[in-house]
């Protein structure tokens, strides 16, 4: 019952500044949509730059074959900016044809360059397009990256929503709450449920807009909504935990961004888990994003969300632990600082 009081009170407080509330509610949706769009834009692709005379037969055969090879895009490169173009990622590699010879310029690893070298040599002999999965490298599926981004953004936006806890700490109302017979846990759970409802609403709108605009990420709409419940619960418990740790909104916002970013990096949002160094693969178990991405891999194959029982349990435990930490910190938080009596 105490939780319901907190939820109602938080909504009342938020509603009083209607414009601010609406902006706080809708702006993250816009940002999440932009994030999803940015993710689509920024997906790694293997763009190959080529330099050579059109009169060279080898050059023409190979370019033709490469153009028809799935996963590779060809573009004419500039011989004067080979190094910078490979470093900036404009091209994954640049192949320069001179006579019968060719040279590959790339900052990629030896394996990739070697595979590309073999491919070009093969195409010189026989320009029939081949399957070249090992060259594409560490690209993750759209669905995994998108889910990773969404959870990352939810973690940041829910810390913003949880800043009511910081306001309560600073304006003395948390102290008044602690005078009452209500428990510290009730306060945290009430704020958790308030934050959950706001964050899930934002998630629901984002995902629904994605579906309406036909931005498919390979996961069905019902699965997205179900997964969203756990993603939101995790993001909310994370946000609440951060808010209980700090007395200043700025610190909470910056820390949540930093922590969410690190968790997403080690969780495999940017590099596929299989391509991560072994040590980080072990460490990644602590990142909730790792488990969401694993579940996404299953859902990509048409399996529904509830079939990921092990993953759901792990995420649920993480949510529970974060909530317990929040309650513990809230209980221990000194609302009275020692200073000479007035």
């Amino acid at each position, binding site marked *: 019952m105490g939780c319901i*009081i907190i939820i109602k*009170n938080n909504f*009342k407080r938020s509603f009083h500044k209607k414009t601010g509330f609406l902006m706080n509610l809708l702006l993250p949706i816009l940002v999440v949509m932009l994030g999803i769009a940015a993710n689509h834009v920024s997906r790694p692709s293997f763009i190959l730059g080529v330099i050579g005379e059109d009169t060279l037969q080898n050059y023409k055969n190979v370019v033709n074959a490469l153009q028809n090879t799935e996963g590779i895009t060809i573009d004419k490169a500039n011989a004067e900016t080979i190094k910078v173009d490979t470093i900036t990622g404009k091209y994954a590699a640049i192949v320069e044809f001179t006579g019968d010879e060719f040279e590959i310029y790339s900052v990629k690893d030896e394996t990739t360059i070697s595979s590309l070298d073999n491919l070009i040599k093969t195409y010189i002999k026989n320009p029939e397009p081949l399957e070249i999965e090992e060259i594409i490298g560490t690209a993750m599926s759209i669905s995994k990256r998108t889910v990773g981004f969404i959870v990352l953004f939810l973690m940041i936006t829910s810390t913003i929503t949880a800043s009511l806890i910081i306001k309560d700490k600073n304006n003395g*109302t948390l102290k008044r*709450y602690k005078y009452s017979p209500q428990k510290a846990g009730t306060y945290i759970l009430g704020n958790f449920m308030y934050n959950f409802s706001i964050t899930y609403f934002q998630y629901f709108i984002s995902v629904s807009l994605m579906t309406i605009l036909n931005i498919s990420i390979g996961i069905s709409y019902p699965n997205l909504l179900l997964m969203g419940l756990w993603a939101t619960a995790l993001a909310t418990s994370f946000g609440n935990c951060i808010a209980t740790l700090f007395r200043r909104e700025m610190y909470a916002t910056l820390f949540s961004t930093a922590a969410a970013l690190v968790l997403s990096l080690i969780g495999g949002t940017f590099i596929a888990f299989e391509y991560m160094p072994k040590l980080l693969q072990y460490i990644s178990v602590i990142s909730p994003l790792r488990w969401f991405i694993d579940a996404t891999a299953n859902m990509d194959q048409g399996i529904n969300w509830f079939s990921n029982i092990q993953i759901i349990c792990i995420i649920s435990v993480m949510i529970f632990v974060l909530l317990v930490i929040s309650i513990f910190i809230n209980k221990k938080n000194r609302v009275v600082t020692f200073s000479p*009596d007035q």
Partner: protein
Amino acid sequence: MNDLLRIDGISKKYGDKTVVAKESFCVKQGDILGLIGPNGAGKSTSINMISTLLLPESGKIFFHGQDITSRQIEYKKSLGIVPQDLAIYEDLSAYDNVKFFCSLYYIRGKELKKKVEEALTFVGLWDKRKELPSKFSGGMKRRLNIACGIAHGPELLIMDEPTVGIDPQSRNHILQTVKTLNSHGTTIIYTSHHMEEIDALCNRILLMDNGQILEDSDKQSYKDKYAKKGCQTLEDIFLYATGTDLRDMEE
């Protein structure tokens, strides 16, 4: 009168500094106890221990003869606090502020509405119940602060300098409120640096300094004792008993 609250040898240290040194006193039912002392005396720390925000390092606190640590929820239901710093939501109306804080004491439905109305009427803010505190004057905010602390009808009310920074009219209103509350049966612990308020309200005085109780007696005995030493007002007694040196803050 029975002992409503009995403090038995409580103490508190912060690092090497003893803030409250094994103090013991009683608050009888129906008292208005004036808790006074210079800055750094240990008043706020004592209040925080009584209100369970801080755990005493030693000693016990008894409410109606029972240790509060074993029945904290029941104790807190009977306790009301009016903190020195305003503790109200600027973004909720006066009505919603009182309603929220009152509801934390397990009061619901019609009873809740009734208590909210009583509290706001009592402090003279019923007509302003729909307005936001951000539009209130300092005195009105103080009165709302009081309403939030008394709405649930506590048996024991702690008021920590409730008249800081307000005009004489508002202060007078608050003092009348305190007297009325007491006449309805509420026991009050009242702290203030304004000795005329203590003189006007309290029937008992507890004087603290350096974490220790210097005086614990009824007001008349307190005055009589120091009248022999030439002290005519409570302020004279205060300065005589605690000295006139400035109390600088320690790091």
